[in-house]
Structure formats: C-alpha cells, structure tokens
C-alpha cells in the first residue's frame, strides 16, 4: 500500500486555508488533489479527512502549550490515520498520514511553511482567505515529492 498524506493549513478561525491530498501513483509519481481534483478517489471519505483534521485541532491547541517546538509530531490518531501538526504564528499545519515518517513530515512542514510565508507576503493575498494559487499547489507537491515520497 502506498502512503497517503493529506495536508491542511488551518487559519485562526479554524477555517481551512489550503487542503491537498497527496498520494503516489503506481508509476511512483506523486499526485496531489486539492479540493476539486482527484475526484474519484475515495470520494466518500474525503470529508472524513476534514473531520479528522478539524477535530484534532483541539489536541493541537492543547499540546502546543506543552512544548517549545513548533513541530508537534504525532498528536492524535483516528483509525488508521495519524495526525501530525506544525504550529505557526499564522496558521496550523496538519498532516494526516497512515505511516510514521517523522523526519520527512518535519522537513515537509518546514518547506510548506516557507511557501506559506511567501504567500502571506503576496500583496494580492488577503490573509485568512483560502489560498487558490496553482503555483503554491505545485510547490507543495514538489515539497511532498521531496520529503514524503522518497
């Protein structure tokens, strides 16, 4: 079974700023489906990812006070999904994954956070609104390729 990841960037008001499902195809290529694409795959469970991420925010909010690091590692689990989180000033980054990959996720978080900060600096981006930039998505996909599927 190939690894599956689901990344969500959650804003201050518990609203998703960015979501992407990441999985590797048979050919080893990493594909990502954000929101509208990747429609056929696990369609009936797509909302489950949102549920899990949203509910794990409680744990994130609890755990983040117990540590100095931004990366919270695995904080929660639901069925086969593990939840890792990164807490930043602007948003909370949450990854659902079905296999342990602590370092990979940490690096992935680091890169995505950097990308996210660049988005924040974009004068055409309103903070707190969903990120709908294809370039950002592509870069996240590249980061996933680099850190999560190797």
């Amino acid at each position, binding site marked *: 079974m190939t690894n599956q990841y689901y990344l969500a960037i959650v804003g201050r*008001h518990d*609203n*998703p700023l960015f979501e992407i499902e990441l999985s590797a195809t048979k050919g080893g290529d990493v594909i990502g489906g954000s929101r*509208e694409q990747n429609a056929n795959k696990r369609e009936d469970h797509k909302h489950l*990812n*949102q549920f899990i991420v*949203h*509910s794990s925010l409680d*744990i994130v909010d609890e755990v983040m006070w117990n540590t100095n690091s931004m990366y919270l590692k695995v904080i929660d689990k639901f069925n086969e999904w593990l939840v890792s989180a990164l807490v930043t000033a602007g948003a909370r980054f949450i990854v659902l994954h079905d296999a342990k990959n602590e370092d990979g996720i940490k690096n992935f978080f680091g890169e995505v956070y950097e990308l996210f900060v660049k988005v924040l600096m974009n004068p055409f981006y309103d903070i707190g609104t*969903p990120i709908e930039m294809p370039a950002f998505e592509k870069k996240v996909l590249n980061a996933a390729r680099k850190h999560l599927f190797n």
Partner: protein
Amino acid sequence: MVSTQSAYEIIQSAFPFHIAAMCSDDAEAVCRKNNLSFVDLLRPFCKPTLEGRIKDPSNLLHVVRNPNFRIMYFSNQFVPSAMARKMMSDAVSRHPPSTESIGMIVVSSSNPDAMEAYRKMVADQMQRQKQSSQPKWFFPSTLHYFVLIHDCANGDDQKAEALWESLRAAYGVNSCHFLKINTKQHNENDNMGNSVNVPDPWSQYMHDKLSLEPLDTSNSNILPGKQSPIIKELKRPPTLSVLGSSLSTDSEMTNSNEHLAGDQYQLDGVAADADRTKYGICLTLSDHDRLRNFIHDFIVRGLYPYLEYMLRTLYEQVNARKGLHGKFFSVTKKWFGGNKPTASTNSQSGLPEVAYAGDSHEMQMRRLADLAFLLQHYDLAYTFYHSAKKEFHTDHAWLQFAGVAEMAAVSNFMLNSAQKPYPMHYMESAIGTYLSTCKLPLYATRCTFLSTEIMKAKGLNNDAAQAYIRVTSEDFDLRSSLLLEQAAYCFNLAKPPMKRKCAFHLILAGHRFSKSGQRTHALSCYKLALQTYKKKAWHLAEDHINFTIGRHSYTLRDLSNALEAFRSLFSHKCLQPANQQNLFLREFLNVYKQYLTQVEKYNEFNSLVPDVQAPPTRAPLPILPLPIIIQNSTRVLLTNSKEECITQGDRKDETDIVRASSVTLTQRFDPLRAKSWASLEEAVVFGKTKRDKHSLANFRPSIQLFSSKTNNSYKPAAVVGEYIVVEIVIKNPLKISLFLGDVTLIWRHISKTDSDTFGENKIISNENTTEYDNFVESEVIDSFVLAQNEEKSIQLYIRPLKIGELEISAITYRLSNYSFALDSSGKRMTGSVGVCGKQELRPVGNRLNNTENERFNVVYATDNRLHLNVVAPAPLLEVSFCNFPSRLLCGEIQQVTVELCNTGSGPLHNLYVASSYPELFSFSDDKPDNWSENDTVYSKVPVIKYHTRHNKAKKITNVIAVPLPESKLVSGCSVKLPLWIIGSAIPGVQEIDFLFYYEPLEPHPRLGYRILKHVSLVSISSSLNITASACNTYQGDTENELGVSDRIDLNQAIVSLNIENLYQLQRVKSTMLSFRIMQVSSVSPHWTIYPIQPYHKDITVTPKEKVLLCFKARNSNPGFIDDEDCQDIQVLFSNISLKDDIELDSSSTPCSDFFFRSGCWYALMPNINKPSVKSFNQNEKLLAGTGSRRMSKKFDIRLGLVIIWESDIEVDGIRRTITGQHHVPVTTIIPLNDDKDKPKQEAVNQKEPEKRKRIATGSMEKPKPGSKPPGRPPLPAHLAPSTPPSVKSADEFRKRMVKYKLRHPSSVYHDFHNKRLCIIPVTLILQNCRDEPLDIFINLAKAKDKTLVRYNLCRIYIIVLTGPRVYILIFHVLKFSSTKSKSEENLNTIIGDAATAFGLTASFTWVGNTAYKRRLEAKDQICLSLMASFCVCNVYNLNELQVYAALHRDECEDTKKIRSNMVEQYPCADSYIVLNSTKQDSFELDDTIYDIADDTNDED
C-alpha cells in the same frame, strides 16, 4: 458540571436494594383500583429520606442515609435473553437488572384465608429458591416481611383488624405491616377535580415505563420543533440504573447485562402528553403518608436488623476462614486443584473460567463486600473487595477479578478518603480484563459507564471520553453510537471544552445511530455537530452533514428541515464533483417538490373555509437557491420595441433599413458616452426650447438603460404600452447544467385611479393571481439552459398597460435538473421534475458616504431601477434610416432617406436633432414637402462661365431643427426626409450620434419631452488628400523685358491645389480607386476663382498619384476689407467645372451645407465661434486663429475651396459611382518676394492636411528635419528666372542675374548588367540676364538633401502662369510600369520628394570637375559640358548644382574674395532624366515634354 455529590447519588442509585415481592391476587386487586400494581404503587416511595442506624461488625454505629430500593415481583424478574437482545436493538431498554433479592410477602385483608395465603406463599418462595437458580438470592435465609393490605373503601375494617392481630401474633410485630389504602371512594365524576389537589407521584415512573416501548413507534409521533435538542440530554447527568449487576459476578448475570441502559436517551416529551391514565385515584394524601410509613417501617424494623445480622454473620464467617486457611489455603488450592474453583468454559469468551461455589471463601468475601457496599459502609467494602481482588488474581479468575477490581475502585470513590487515593488503574485493569481477557465487551461497557462517571466527578472528562471511545466496537452500532455520544458529551465538558472533538464524535455517533436505524438520534447528533462546522469553510464536511441531515429529515418526513439542509448545500461554492452535485440537486428538487405538494395540501385544507370574496390566490413562491443572480448586473431598458433591444441595434434587414434605437443591451455603460448624451440633451432642452435657466440645476438627463452605473435615485418613467426589458445576469455555480423553464418576472402593479383620488390603490401582482392580463403583459421564456459554471444574461420584457406604479420584485422559473428536462429528441418531457420558485431581484445602489452616519455604517442608496412609474401614453417617434452607409470614403457624400414615424399616441412637434458631429450630416433645410428622391447627390446646373451665385452663409449649431410638414407629426403618420452623410476627414471608425428631441403637442402630465438616441457607426477610408496654397501674381499690364509684369496684383492670386490619392495606401487589398475631379468651387465673401485658360479637363487622380491644379483667384470686391465681425455674411460661390457639360450647384444643399459645417469655414472665419462641440479639432481652430493673426491684412484671403470628385467603386460586384467633396481653406496669400517666410506660411496651411495624411497612411515617413517642407508651391521657383531685377531688394536682384538650364536626353536605355556605370553628358547652358559681364561659379559638389517619399508613381500637372499669358504645360508625366520584382529596389531609391515641388531626386554623381568658374559677358550665353554618372535605373533630377554669380570686377582679386561676393542664383527648373535598363520595363515619359527653358526662349 457534575458534582461529586451527584456522582455519589448516581452510583448509589445504581446499586439499590432489590426486594422481591410476592403478592396475592386479591392484594393486587386492591392496588389495581388505582391503575397501579403493588410494585408500582410503592415505587415513588422507594427512596425515603431517612437515616438508618446499624452496628457494623466491630460494633460501631454506622449511619445509612437515604437508602434506595427496587421492589420487583418475584416471578417476572427476568426477560429472556433473546428478547432482551431484541429490545436492545429496538430501543434503548431500561429493564431493571436483577440482583440478589430479599423477600416481601403481601396479602390483602380481603383474602378469605389470609393466614393460609401467607403460609402458602412462604412455602412457595422457599420451594422456588431451592429449585430455581433464578432469581438469585443474596442469602440462603431470606427475610420474610408480611404485609396486610386493607381497602378502606370496600373492605371490612373489623375483619382486617382481626387479621392484623393474628398476623402480628404469628410473625412478630417487626416482620409485619398493616397497610390501609383506598380511603377514598372511587368516583368517575369527580375524577378530574380530585386530580388537581392530590399529587400524582406515579406518573413520572409510569412514564418511564411507557418508554419501554420501541422508540421507533414513538418517533413517528414526534412533531418537528417539539423535539428536544439533544444538548439538553447531554446536560442531564446520565443515570446508571443498569449498573447494579456488577454486584454479582455470576455468569448468569450476562443475560441481564444485555439490557444495557441508556435511559438518558429518552426523549423528553415522548408520550408525556399521551392520554394519561390517572394513577392513585383512590388514594388521599393520608394514604400517601401511610405508604411512606410502611416503607419506613419495613426498612427500619425489618430490613436493617436483618441486614445487620447478616453482615455480622458473614464477617465472622469470612474472618474465621481467613484465620483458618489464610493464604495457605489459597496456595494449596492452587496446587491440589481442589474441588472449589472448577474450570468451566465461558460460552462467550471461550476462556477457561474459574467458577466458585456460592459458599466458597472468596464468594463469601465478595458477598460481604457487596453487603457492606449496599449498606454504605464503603470502608469495609473496599477492604474486602481489595482482598478479594488479590485472591481472584492469584486464582486467575479473571472475570471475578475484574468485578472486584471495579467495585474496589467504586468503593474507594464512594469512600472519598484522603488517605486512599482513587485507584484509576483498578478500573482500567477491570475494563481491560473484561475486554481482552474475558471478551465481554458488555461488561467492559458497564464498567466504563461507572468509571467515566467517576472520572467526570473528578474532572477527568477527557479521560472519560477516551474511556468511552475505547469500548466502542465495529459490531454494535447502537451501543457504539451511545458511547460515542457520551464521549462527545465528555469532550464538551472538558476544560477547556473540546468543541471540535465533541462535534466530530457527534458525527461519528450520528453515523452509527443511522446505521442502527435510529434516525431521530442520528439527526439530532448531526444537527448538533453542524453548529460547530457551520461557516468554517470545511465544505466537504459541511456538505456531508447537510446532506445527511437532509436525508434523515426527509425519511422522517420533516420536509421543511430537509429542505433547509439541502438548500444549504448550495449556499457556498460547491466543491463536490459533478455526480455528487447532480445527486444533491436531484435530492433537493425531489424534496422540494414533495414539500410543495405538502404545503399545497395544507393550503387546500385551509381554503376549505368558504371565502367566496377572495380572489383565487396562489401561495407565495418558494425561494430557490440556484442559480446565483448577480444582482447589480441587472439592467432595465425602456424601449419601444422588444426585439431590437435584445439584438444588435444597427441590425439590417433586406431593405437596408436601420431603425434608430441605439440604446441596446449589447452596449456596456460608457461614462463618456453618457456624458455626451447628457450634454446634448441639455443643449437641446435649454438651447432650443427656451426653458427657464433656473431649472438647469434640476435638469436630469433622461436615461433609457438603467444599470448600476446610472443614477437610479428616481423612478424611471415607463410609458403605457411600451416595453421594459429587464436583463438579469445569472450564474450557475455547479459543474452540471441547470435547466430553467417558464422564466418570467414577478411584478406588482399599483394602479392609481384618477376618478376617485381617495380610492385605495389597487395592487395586483402576478405572483398570487392569474388575472392580470389587462394590467401588465410579461414575457415567458420557455426554456433557458445554463451550462456548467456558466454566467449568462437573460432578457425578459414586460409591458405595462395601465397607469400606476410597477415594481419588478423577483424572477420566477422552474428549476430542474437538466437531464430531466429534455428527452432524447430535445423536446420537453411532460412530467419533468422541476420546482417552481423565485429569486428576489434586489439591486442596491451606490455605497453612500456623505453624512457621518453613512460613513460609519454601510449605507446604500436606494435603487429604483426596478420600481417604475407607469405614465400615460405619449407620442413615440420611430426613426429609420434607409440605405445608411456603413462605410464611406473621406469626404464621400451619401444620401440617406430618413423615415420618421409617430407610433405612440398623440401628435408630436418641435423635433430637433442634436449631435456631437453636426458637420457630418445635413437635413435638407427647406421644403421637405416637395423633395423627391434623386439618384445623384448634387443638383446640376447649366454651365455659365464666370458665373457666381450669392448665398448666405449658414450657421450651424449642434442642435438642428428638423422640418416637419405642418410642423407636426400626428400619431400613426410617417414622413420621409432626405439626409446627407459625409465621411469625415479623418479615416477610421466614425460614430455619429443622433439625439432626436421632440415634444408632445398636447401637454403630457409627466413627460415634457422625449428623447430618441441613435448612434451610427461608419467606417471611413481615406480618399484624397488636398492641400492648397495661394500666391500673388504680377499685374499683367506692365511687362519688363522678360515679358513678366513686376507689379504684384493684390487682387489676384494663383491658387494651387495639390491633390493626392491616398486610397490605396490605406487599404492594400481593396481595388484601386481613381478619382475624377468634377469641379472646383470656391466659397468666399469676396473672392471668386477662374480657370487659367485653356485648362485641362477630365483630370483623374489614379492610385498613388498626385495631381497639382492651379487656378486664378480674383477679388471681386477690391478694396473692401472683410468685416470679420459680421455675422450675417453674404458669400459668393464660383465654380470651375472640370467636366465639359456639367456644373454642379455648390450653393445649395448638400454641398454648401457641408462646407459651412466643415472646419474649413471656421478656419476662414476665425471670429465665428464654432458651436461648442466636443469633437471639434482644437488644433485646427488654433491654427486658423494664429494664422490670421500673424499675417498682415494685406495678404489675407478668405477663400474656401470645395473640390467635388467622383469615383467608381465596386462593392460586392456592383459597380456604382460615388461622389464626395473636400474642403480646403486658403487664408493667406504667399507674397512672391518673401522667400524666407515661405516655409512658415506653408506650415500654417499645410500642417493640418499633413497631419491627416499621416493618420491616414500611417506609413508616411516624417519629413526629415532640415529637409524642405513638402508641398512647396512651385510657382515662385519657376517664375524666378523670368523675373527681372526690379523694385525688389538688392538681394533679390542679385539672385536673378543668371538663368541656367540643363540639356540632356530625357530618357536613356542602359543595360546595367553589362556595364555598371552609365555616364551621360549633360550640357549646362547659362544665360546672363544682365547688361554687364558676370563672374559665375558653378558648384556641383553640394549634395542635396534627399527626402524619400513613397510614391512609386508621380504624375504632375503643372499649370504655369507667366504674366498675363497662361500656358498649360504638362510638365512631366512619369509612369513607372516595371515589374514589381525589379522595381522594388528602384522604388526605394527612386522616390524623391515629389511634394517638394517636383523634387524627384535620386542620387547620381557628377563626374569630372565639380566646380567651374567662368566669365559671362553681358547677355551672353555659354554652354558647359558636364558628365553625370548613374548606377541604377531610376528617374533623376539633374538639377543638383548651384550657380553663383557676381558682377565682374576687372581688377584681379583674390578668388576667395570673389566667392564671398557671389550670390547664389535662383535654381533652374528641375530637369529629369529617366534611365531604363531595357525597353520593356521602362519608365516612360509622356510624349510631350516641354522644357521651360525652351518656352522662355521662345518668348524671348
């Protein structure tokens, strides 16, 4: 939050004393009178508040507070396990669990042989205890307590008393009770009255009983809205009535444990209002007291002494055994196996189980602990549970171990001792053992319930939630859902509350509820969770919740909630894939349809109430969520016809008729255009109709097309019978197509009847009635398809038929899933699923920001574009243009027939046309009545030589009155008028705007005037570029020796016209056009033009050619100086016809009209202010002004030239002749002698046409700086040699000392392939014009500036005038007819500056000496042989030399000095040579080439 106290209570009530009651039939009968069984009768009194005192085994007094009982019938304590399972799955059962019981025996006093009955029942009980394992009794020796029930109302008191005496005697007073009830006679009649006074403590319990019925049946009774929110349920501390079974660890308890409780899930209000039976109707308050006393007696006298005794006995037994065996026993037991703990196989877990005999030491210990627990002696209980736990653990009796571990933890909690901290791990190990070792998830669940209750009491809500989640399993949906719901509840209790976790687990619980068929519970879970997920943008999750809610609500027939849920699926941007959206939509439509049917039925039911007066009304339409209406894009167009407003305004049909209704929906709002319309309207309203100036401030331009950009603060005025078109922009946000059917507008018409002013306004709307035909007519669009994610506009017309107010409030349509709406053949299926609904139209005005209030709040202006005033019928002008041209050449004139038609009601008058471009069209100003359509544009007049016509100069403004027959146009009539259109001077697309203004003849209450706007688009192509200049002539009467007059005649001038064909330059692909110059006319106050006789006729300007025409102009009124301020100027028209037989009337329409409208006239008359028209070329005006200022009056000339031309054009294979006219102003005469000023004057005249030319061609190169300005008039140059040194200045005199010319072959054939260089001898002939010898110096070295102009052909007509005699000379006609390939290079090199007075120069080189110095005797002539070398085929101007001359000085002077004295002579005429390579592709010179030198010679 749950306090410790309440957790205590919960646990206490979870472990009640279980009392088994045996009741004789007659005793039962007594109770039945109250609709109650004996057990039920006692139930409200089973929690007495009393403090019992017992002595514990160590003889210390122990207080038992508020004991808790459960009395059950002896026989029916057990529900078979299969049945229990069913109940479990059916609903949440709350069947009480059994425990080991203590007995009670009841007999009625009415029993004939009461004593015998007692005895029998005791025996029966003993019998059963021995035979059956059920029920399980706590002790082998049961407590028997005898109750004698007496019915006070019916029974025999004395007999009862006697019985009581004997009973007391038989069993002792402490074991008996005499219970008297039913003191009140049962009376049906005062049933109701009594029930008010006597409290009914039973109903609450009996209600619990009712809920034992399967919940599903009660669900259907639930009314929406009355359903209690589950949050209330959650707040209620769950009672754990189930938990008692943990007291026992016997395997048989499994059965009863199946009845897992969750009685907290009963819905409040269920069956509460069901017709309730009255309980205790025969009981008075004193009866209640008696019952209370009975319980008290039973406990204090019967139960407590008994239990105290049993406790003591057990304690002694256990201690004795402990002393005897101690640990030794347990060790040996292990080794020898022994007979006591026997291994048996648990049927459920398959695990070898250790079974103990009932009287084994371990079981006794356990029993002792249980008893101590029941008696609230938790210290003792904990001690024994604890030691039992150890023993069971050693025995590996896991089930028993888990039980005591659990109870030890509970006892410890109840003990609440500071010394002994709560052993959480006991609980955990108990649950773990149940789950993993014993595989008894139900036990684990029960244990979890206890554990979580304690955890919650200790504030460990999070752990409690986790504990709940741990015992969920895949297999048991209902149980898991309950547990998950509890977990969610715990998350909510946590500090800080974990709302998101709570919501998620509610979703999970809801999911499991729905899997187990508990739709109501599922629904409430989802609804509760939705509160958290709402508006957080977790769209997939939200959609899932909404969809589930919708489905469940639908199944539960709660259609309005289902609808709401489905509707919210479309409230945000739907990210679901198409098939999911399709599903959503289908469900939504389906539910909606059913909902509407339901509502309709309801309404039908209501309308059964007879109300004949009420008109047939329809229910207000529901509001649909799809598609999205982009509110502020709504536009409203007031129009006279419904078709053209939608399609393109200038739509042409077969007859080439264009209807004037340029305001269409296809146009976007253009603020500049709106402004120009407004200024035109203002101009016509205040300029022509002499309205009060003070009302200027209130002037509002009339708007036809209302959009968000227009001022919508006033209600638009729509005329009865005319159309209102509403355009609505709608957007489909989904990935599937939407089908809208029967789209129409919803309006509200408020009619104001004039007859009775006090009468009510009659309001009628098509939303609720169908009888509106005579009020408003509105369009219905049958079908409208919106593809996925499409944004489209929909246009609907509406036509008010009565005066009043019209409010367009909404759009209604039938929304359906596209796939339903069309069958295979594309036809609409009859039964397509669709829902009729509406959406409101609420455009908002601009955000206001004027007052403080507006600035601090978000305030929008009222927007009235959909609130119209319907006003009385008014005249309506329709204008159509017949044969309106779509493309014109610059200056082309076309005649258009305008048909004006009044289609409204009532006559109209005062028709005006206002335009920003009044110079581009002309209505015939006079006599429209006798106008007939002509083929030609110009009217012809017989040729009369030198004839001039007088006419008045016409003044134009941008408001033009349109002449109407009888100055009015009655309703239904039409009139045809001619209209001439001229192509503007600037090529490109020309918009001509027409604003027709007219007034109703009879005063209209609301409309003072009406407006019709039209814009015509004409694309203009360049045709001719004409420049003109004028210069003085010499008077002809005095001639010098050269035959040239030397007096300048100020009343005469030579006018030269430079006509250039620009047509091909612009439109490469189109056919070439030749222009025939028909006539040149002059318009001037004093000047007239004459031809220079004999003159060349039939002048044709072929493509890319340039033609020069010269005329003579004469001041007919010499000495008269123009009064510039004179407004009413009489002007003279003179014509020179260049066609033999035709003279065109230039003094009448349209020729003169366009002249006076053109910029030309204003250039001539700078003091006449052109009407303030925006389009007026500011530069032109400026130039005209400065020109007149700079020049002295002496050289002023006011001569306007009109050049009328004709051309054959082929359009779509049809050849037709077009005519046009150009206007050129001539304002100054260039003085002959003022050579230095020449370029400047030229610039004044030429700048404007030059600019035009550049715009037109775009490819024209800018003249290089320093080069000669193009278009230099040639005349002075040619006159120069023949002009004698006369009165002019010395310089001028000295410049004309030598005349020279060049002689050479006019054309040479040379093969450049053979020989690269062609050297041609040229003879320079120099003539001394003086009577003295001259020194001359010829310089060949100076290179002339080359100006490349892209003419490949240049044909020049030169009309040369020398003195009074006129020679018409065709000077040079060069035709270039070589093939393209070869000529391409030539083209680039050959082309000299044709505009610079024949300056066709190309580079050649003089060879040999480049300078000569000669002496020329008086009147002598010498020849010099020069050599010119050429290297390409071309046309060359050989006049590339300068001749300097000075009077001869004999004394030998320094050469340099002589040179400095020399003066450059006027150059000779250009002299062209044509070099051809072969005969075929050759430049041809026309046969007649005259050399000016020859002519002058001849003259001489």
